[in-house]
């Protein structure tokens, strides 16, 4: 009876709208689902929409950061969308660094960012 977060594919990208307060198992399952879906669909970018998330603790923060790094290793880019001010404040105070993770204010800017990131990568070659 485990919850599962849906992953949408829109053109070349995956969109992951997180709409519930995930327990640790659900979060870790989501990480696996995203990576599997990248492999299956050959999506070059992932947008994780956290705009309605009310809390990110060190466990969820780590899952998000790890997912980005793992996706990078597979050749895909990850952008975190719409982090609320209260969560940004709490994460910085907690001392958690989401180093190297891309962020954007909304889905549109996130898609724009992914487009540019991927063009750039194709121009320079390699990830």
């Amino acid at each position, binding site marked *: 009876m485990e919850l599962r977060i849906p992953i949408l594919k829109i053109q070349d990208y995956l969109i992951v709208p997180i709409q519930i307060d995930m327990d640790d198992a659900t979060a870790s399952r989501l990480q696996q689902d995203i990576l599997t879906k990248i492999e299956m669909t050959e999506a070059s970018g992932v947008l994780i929409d956290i705009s309605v998330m009310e*809390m990110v603790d060190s466990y969820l923060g780590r899952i998000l950061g790890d997912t980005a790094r793992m996706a990078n290793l597979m050749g895909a880019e990850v952008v975190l969308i719409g982090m609320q001010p209260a969560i940004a404040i709490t994460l910085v105070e907690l001392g958690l660094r989401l180093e190297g993770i891309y962020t954007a204010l909304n889905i549109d800017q996130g898609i724009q960012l992914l487009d540019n990131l991927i063009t750039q990568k194709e121009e320079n070659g390699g990830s």
Partner: protein
Amino acid sequence: MTLIEEIKIQEEKDIVLCRRACREVARQLQFNLVDQTRITTATSELARNIFEYAGEGIVRIEKISKNMKQGLQITFMDEGPGIKDLNEAMGEGWSSHRGMGMGLPGARKLMDEFSITSTLGEGTRITVTKWRR
């Protein structure tokens, strides 16, 4: 001091129930959004520690007041293995397992008050408080 709720931590899902309950209480006590988030996050860290290291325990949520100030006090109690070296455990980045070692120091930074007592073989008790501005 008014007891608002007591929550048993026995399985992983209880971490979520517990942090949601604390958020709800914080909202009712009219903490601002940032403080609600700080309280919820600290609770999540400490409730997870109970589940991870002691297997089970109890979280008590209380409303308190002092010098006209209203506050929310949360106590995390377990009869688990206890913590050998509190200084070490409170240090940023220290974890006996594969954690990030941010739970204890993080919860301390997010809350206004933090106290911990722990006895090897007997258990751990952590009390945190947030005052309303």
